[in-house]
């Protein structure tokens, strides 16, 4: 671990770069002339190419180079950014991922076709000449030396130039004499072999020249052929090509000033960005977990120290113990924050998804994201990615209508999907809202009946009916599309969310759209719990599920021997005696308490012997050997070092419902 494999480090880094590039490209689709984004994409491509080559991903480096070149030209203002170009680079970027995964695979055909697209996109923008590679191009060269200036020279000789005795190589040599130059041949106008006239001149050149000589000297190179050739000489760094085949004496002084003023500004911006990224440290997640464990142990040891100090008369010991208590508490809070990440990293991937889906389905979709700065535990983010993809796909595939249908229904042609996150207490609520057609109840019912999930004609509340879509094997899509409708969906989504100790709710209005809300605890590592005692053992009930606590009066206790119900504000709530469920074999306490827990609409009371208090604690998972015990979702370590088990609320509610059903059946 201390010596990570450089290749895998590169892969991680490259994956991040690709993500950055993608998000930049997607931003560009919204505002094509956003200079910052163009620069960001270019920088990303440039870094990817550089480090790719360094780590031996030659195919990747070579391929990326072309995209970089294209963007370099956009950046310099040679060609405008267009939707075609952005799309071409987006698909090229997928290919880069493939090159990254399997550097030795056969990607040539794909590469070529993508590059063709790219070149078309650049050409379509009305600029001359995609470039065939020659030099490793184009990190922006910032000039610092006094008179040094950089020129871009494009020239093309007439077809009969060689017949007239002009030697282009001589021209190139003369330019090399002027200063440091990079020369790239433009072969875009070379015809097919069949029609190639070997004595004609088909090539053009693109030269980046760094020199301290004045413009006139460059023009002198071409003095003998200038009359009927195409020649562009432009100063790089901001100024547009002067597009002047004839010498113009003006730009000199002023242009230089502007260019020099611009350059340091850009440089400064770059510097600040680099500094910002250098502030982040990449740490393997397991190291964080290890540290978390240590901190957990420290907190436990500290609470023992506090107990000891409390009984000792030594004032000095007490003050040290209080100091340590404060420090370890702070340390734990800091530790928690370390694992938090903004959901922006989760949401950003959906922009791409929506972009692609919009093309595939022919629906116009606008994705709005809100609350991206909400922070959630990294594990939660990782585990939520797939369910969210599924939900967003569902919204788009099943929910949103085609533009013509929307117009007919009096809506805007463009459908909306709103993805939002916000924090309430110890939970984050993520909602996926669309303004589509809503869930079709008849179809849900028909489908559920035909697949035997419910009896034909069964009476169900609207909410129950909607919940049916979370049943395994349920899918209403009439045609299986590429996106959804394979019936592997919503039940898996629900399971994943529940495994994260979260809940999922769905609200849908016909014709107006659906909203799916996920409530997920902010972190999997820590839990706010209610500590209770049952028999000799201590148990933790997640506080998020606790509705209220009340005393189980003796008469309620006696009366409920036959039926385990208490009436709570005019509704009957089934309850479970944990003492019996856990077979503690102890006598009940005199004043038993009922803790009412709920998930959404279902409620169950749990009878415990004593409520000890609330307790914030680090969650430890149970080992594999106890995976068969579904009543507990985990364990935690109490202040005295002993272990308390955490109750699995969903499971207990299921047990309660089962009991209720049995009682009803028994009449």
């Amino acid at each position: 671990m201390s010596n990570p494999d450089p290749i895998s480090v590169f892969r991680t880094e490259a994956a991040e770069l690709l993500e950055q590039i993608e998000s930049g490209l997607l931003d560009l689709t919204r505002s094509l002339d956003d200079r910052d984004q163009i620069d960001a994409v270019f920088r990303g491509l440039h870094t990817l190419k550089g480090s790719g080559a360094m780590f031996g991903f030659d195919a990747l480096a070579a391929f990326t180079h072309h995209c970089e070149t294209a963007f370099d030209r956009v950046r310099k203002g040679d060609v405008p950014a267009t939707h075609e170009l952005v799309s071409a680079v987006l698909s090229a970027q997928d290919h880069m991922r493939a090159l990254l995964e399997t550097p030795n695979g056969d990607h040539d055909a794909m590469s070529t076709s993508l590059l063709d697209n790219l070149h078309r996109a650049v050409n379509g923008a009305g600029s001359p000449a995609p470039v065939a590679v020659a030099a490793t191009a184009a990190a922006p060269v910032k000039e610092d030396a006094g008179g040094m200036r950089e020129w871009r020279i494009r020239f093309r000789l007439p077809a009969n130039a060689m017949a007239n005795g002009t030697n282009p190589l001589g021209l190139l040599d003369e330019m090399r004499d002027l200063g440091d130059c990079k020369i790239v041949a433009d072969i875009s106008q070379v015809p097919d072999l069949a029609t190639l006239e070997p004595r004609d001149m088909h090539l053009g050149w693109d030269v980046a020249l760094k020199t301290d000589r004045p413009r006139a000297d460059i023009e002198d190179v071409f003095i003998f052929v200038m009359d009927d050739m195409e020649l562009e000489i432009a100063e790089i760094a901001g100024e547009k090509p002067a597009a002047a085949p004839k010498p113009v004496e003006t730009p000199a002084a002023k242009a230089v000033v502007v260019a020099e003023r611009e350059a340091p500004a850009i440089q400064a911006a770059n510097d600040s960005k680099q500094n910002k990224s250098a502030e982040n440290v990449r740490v393997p997640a397991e190291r964080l977990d290890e540290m978390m464990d240590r901190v957990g142990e420290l907190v436990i040891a500290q609470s023992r120290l506090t107990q000891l100090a409390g009984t000792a008369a030594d004032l000095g010991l007490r003050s040290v113990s209080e100091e340590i208590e404060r420090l370890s508490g702070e340390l734990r809070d800091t530790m928690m924050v370390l694992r938090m990440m903004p959901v922006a990293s989760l949401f950003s991937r959906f922009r791409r998804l929506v972009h692609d889906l919009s093309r595939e389905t022919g629906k116009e979709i606008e994705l709005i994201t809100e609350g991206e700065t909400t922070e959630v535990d990294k594990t939660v983010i990782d585990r939520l990615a797939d369910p969210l993809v599924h939900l967003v796909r569902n919204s788009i595939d099943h929910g949103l209508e085609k533009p013509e249908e929307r117009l007919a229904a009096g809506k805007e042609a463009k459908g909306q999907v709103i993805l939002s996150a916000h924090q309430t207490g110890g939970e984050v609520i993520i909602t996926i809202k669309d303004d589509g057609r809503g869930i079709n109840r008849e179809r849900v019912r028909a489908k559920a009946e035909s697949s035997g999930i419910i009896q034909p004609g069964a009476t169900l509340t609207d909410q129950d009916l909607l919940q049916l879509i979370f049943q395994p094997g349920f899918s209403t899509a009439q045609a299986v599309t590429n996106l959804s409708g394979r019936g592997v969906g919503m039940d898996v989504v629900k399971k994943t969310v529940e495994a994260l100790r979260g809940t999922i709710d769905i609200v849908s209005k016909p014709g107006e759209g659906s909203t799916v809300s996920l409530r997920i605890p902010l972190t999997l590592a820590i839990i706010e719990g209610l500590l209770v005692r049952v028999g000799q053992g201590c148990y933790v009930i997640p506080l998020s599920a606790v509705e209220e606590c009340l005393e189980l009066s003796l008469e309620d206790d006696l009366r409920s021997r036959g039926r385990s119900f208490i009436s709570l504000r005019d509704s009957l709530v089934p309850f479970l005696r944990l003492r019996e469920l856990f077979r503690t074999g102890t006598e009940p306490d005199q004043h038993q308490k009922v803790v009412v827990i709920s998930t959404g609409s279902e409620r169950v009371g749990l009878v415990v012997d004593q409520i000890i208090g609330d307790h914030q604690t680090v969650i430890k998972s149970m080992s594999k050997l106890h995976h068969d015990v579904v009543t507990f979702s985990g364990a935690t370590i109490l202040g005295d070092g002993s272990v308390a088990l955490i109750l699995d609320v969903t499971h207990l509610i299921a047990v309660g419902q089962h009991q209720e059903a049995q009682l009803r059946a028994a009449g």
Partner: protein
Amino acid sequence: MSEAARKLDYETIWGGEEELSVLTFNLNGETFAIEAIVVQEILDLLPETHVPGSKSFVSSVINFRGKVIPLADIRLAFGMDATETTIDSRIVVIELDLDDEATLIGLRTDKVNEVTTLPKLASEPPPSVGMRWRADYINCLVKRGGEFIIVPNLHAIFSSKRDRTGAAQVPN
């Protein structure tokens, strides 16, 4: 477990070596030995937390350095009776690969004896008949002095129990 698989386990534990380094301990008067390499630590008894609803031979958990690990009593897996703890009782913490995942397990023992080496020559696979205990839970018997040392097949003990209930796990 088939006869062939048992042979394989038997060969694996010796790994082509002529000697095996083990930790020996007592359970109900019998001497058991487990590979020294899987032993992590030997602990005095710790407060245990009973897990209601779990299988009897892993009925509780303990706090092992901030980790919650199961405490197993392999006596019960072998069908022996549980006994009262004594002043010599210890917990042996072992690490096993279950489903390619390193799992820490505490083993309850009556007394821990020593780390020693067992020669392969003196060992033999468990006989298929004439055993009081399930033969597939035993890797081999090693004769030493006048007694047999039992080398339990820990993987069989812990994973067969797991397989039976594996379907209950939530797929992720």
